[in-house]
């Protein structure tokens, strides 16, 4: 295998691993956050506005971890700097 094939294989495999692990952990965390918020809502329905607002902010913070992983895998597949470098080196 030449270096370009190696880079392509590594990028695709790592992108898959990044997305799978990067969605697994935030999914668990979001589930726990929603469960806790629902419990709090059941106990104090009067505070629903505050709880919902904090829940949304927290969920977005947790979800941004998954988004970082997604951006990383997109960079690996569509805008890989090593790939461009290898193409540039091969063109010379």
């Amino acid at each position, binding site marked *: 295998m030449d270096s370009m094939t190696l880079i392509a294989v590594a990028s695709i495999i790592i992108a898959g691993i990044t997305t799978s692990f990067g969605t697994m952990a935030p999914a668990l965390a979001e589930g726990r956050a929603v469960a806790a918020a629902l419990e709090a809502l059941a106990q104090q329905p009067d505070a629903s506005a505050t709880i919902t*607002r904090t829940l*949304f*902010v927290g969920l*977005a*913070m947790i*979800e*941004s971890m998954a*988004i*970082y992983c*997604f*951006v990383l895998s*997109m960079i690996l597949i*569509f*805008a890989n700097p090593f790939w461009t470098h290898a193409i540039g080196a091969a063109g010379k």
Partner: protein
Amino acid sequence: MHLSPDQIIFWQLGWCKLNATIVWTWALMLVLVAGSRLVTRRLRHGATRSRWQDMLEIVVTMLVRQIGDAGLPRPARYLGFLGTLFLFLALAALCTVLPFYEPPTGSLSTTTALALCVLTAVPMYGVLEVGWRGYLKTYLEPTVIMLPFNIIGEVSRTMALAVRLFGNMMSGAMIIAILLAITPFLFPVVMTLLGLLTGLVQAYIFCILAAVYIAAATRNT
């Protein structure tokens, strides 16, 4: 497939490019400015008010209340900055229902610019509120050892703001593009609806986070 609206170029002259990001940003700015100018041209007291004035009043009072809830004691002071951020981001997300529209927030340049605005606005409000000494002292909280971590935190939270918004908007557009190729008829509509919700939540998050950062900088201990 394109990653961001930066790659759609309408017109080019040398190094000067007119891409979809710039065009749609200016279109949104035009809509916001001209719309609010038209509505606020004839403001009225009393019972006979136009429906548009009612709508703007609802939006503004909601913004003031939310900024106040985020921990800022005088919300009207920050309404100009945070309210503009929210209105721009919300309109950028809501317009995705229009055909041929590309959200300018799906480009990393736009979100980085907005995050840099927050990065400069936070010390500005901090200095205005508690003075240079008071603001610089927040970097030494709770102890002097935390100084480098506070500075790193300042930079990393700006990056997180930019990448979070970009990732959310870009992923929405990309999922729709992929689904259009697989199941072209019904499913992309559902994902567009979900994208509207995500976009509004992200606009809200961006502003609330900016408000929280400003609140942390202006708190005089």
